C-alpha cells in the first residue's frame, strides 16, 4: 500500500520553504552558470536535503526535476532517504536505466558519457543534464574553457575529474547539436559546462 509506505518513510525532511521564490532563485543561478560557463555560482538557500546529496544538487533537483523528467541516481547516492525525498518533493520517477534519464546526479565524473542520452539531431534538447558532485569547484586552474558565453578563455579547477573524462567529452562534441550538459556541484557551489563549451587542459598538467 502506498499510503502505508509513505507513513513509514525513513524521515522525510522539508523541501523549499517558499517554493516559488526559492526555485526561481535556483533557476536564476543555474541560468547564470549555463550562460557564463566557468563562473562559480553559489546557492544561498538553507535546505535540509538527504545526506548523500550536495545542497546545490538538491536545490537544482527541487527546482527543475518533475514528473516529466526521469531522474537517475548513481548507486552510491541512491539511499532510501534520497530516493524518498526526491520522489516526494519532485514527484519524479527514479530510473535505474541511465539512458532514460533526463537528469542524473552522480558522485563522480563518469568514465564515459555514452551511458547517457545525448538527444537526437531533431530534438537535441532531450539530451541529459548531469549533476556531478565533486569536492572542489573553483575558478582559476588548469582547465581552459572557451566557447559561447566566454570572452576569450576562462580557467577553472576541478581536481577530481580525470583527464580521460575531458577527452571522452571532446570526442562526443563532434556530434553537436547532440550532447550532454554538465553541472559540477560542491556544497552550495556550482559551475556549469554546457555542451557548447570547449574544455582543454593546460600543457604539463594531467
Amino acid at each position, binding site marked *: 500500500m502506498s*499510503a*502505508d509506505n*509513505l*507513513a*513509514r518513510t525513513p524521515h*522525510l525532511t*522539508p*523541501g523549499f*520553504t517558499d*517554493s516559488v521564490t526559492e526555485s526561481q532563485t535556483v533557476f536564476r543561478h543555474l541560468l547564470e552558470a549555463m550562460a557564463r560557463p566557468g563562473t562559480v555560482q553559489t546557492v544561498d538557500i538553507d535546505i535540509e536535503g538527504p545526506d548523500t546529496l550536495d545542497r546545490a544538487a538538491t536545490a537544482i533537483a527541487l527546482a527543475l526535476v518533475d514528473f516529466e523528467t526521469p531522474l537517475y541516481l548513481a548507486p552510491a547516492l541512491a539511499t532510501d532517504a534520497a530516493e524518498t525525498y526526491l520522489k516526494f518533493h519532485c514527484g519524479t520517477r527514479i530510473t535505474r536505466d541511465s539512458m532514460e534519464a533526463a537528469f542524473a546526479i552522480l558522485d563522480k565524473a563518469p568514465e564515459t558519457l555514452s551511458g547517457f542520452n545525448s538527444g537526437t539531431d531533431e530534438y537535441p534538447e532531450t539530451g541529459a543534464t548531469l549533476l556531478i558532485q565533486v569536492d572542489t569547484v573553483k575558478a582559476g586552474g588548469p582547465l581552459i574553457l572557451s566557447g559561447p558565453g566566454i570572452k576569450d578563455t576562462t580557467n577553472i579547477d576541478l581536481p577530481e575529474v580525470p583527464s580521460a573524462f575531458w577527452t571522452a567529452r571532446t570526442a562526443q562534441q563532434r556530434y553537436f547539436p547532440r550532447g550532454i550538459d554538465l553541472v559540477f556541484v560542491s556544497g552550495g557551489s556550482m559551475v556549469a559546462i554546457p555542451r557548447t563549451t570547449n574544455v582543454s587542459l593546460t600543457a604539463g598538467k594531467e
Partner: protein
Amino acid sequence: MEPQASPPHSNERKRWMSILAKASYEDLNSLWQNLPDKPEWSRIRAPEIGMVMVRGRMGGTGNRFNLGEMTVTRCTVGLSCGLIGHGYVSGRNKDHAEVAAVIDALMQRKERAETVEHSIIKPLELRHLDRRKRASRKAAATKVEFFTVAREN
C-alpha cells in the same frame, strides 16, 4: 520513545482522509480547537493549492468521464515523533489542509487514534451523513416523473 504507529490499514485511513477532505473548515476547526494536548509539528510540504480532475461514471456503472476540475489544497506535516500526515482538502483554505494533515498523522498514533476518532472524525462523519441525507431527501422530494419516458431503474 519509539513512536507507536498503528498499522494505518489503507481502508481505515481512506475513511478518515475522506472525512477530513470533505469536512467544512468551520466544523473541523472548532473540533480541533477543543482537542486537548496538541502535538508539535513541522511542515514538510507547505500548504499549496492545485487542481484535480474529478471523474465520474454515469449511474455509478458506466464508462469513466471527466466531470470537471476542482480546487484542492494539500499539505504534509511531520510530528516530532517522526510520523507523517498528509492533508488533501477541497477548496483553497491552507489552514484547513494543515489541520487535516496533523489529524491524519495523529490518527496513525495508536495511543491518540481513539481520542481523535471520537472527538473529531466521528462527529465530522455524522455531520457529513446528515448533510447528505438532507440533500438526497430534498432531491427525492422534487423528483419529476415523465410518464412518456421509461425510466431504466
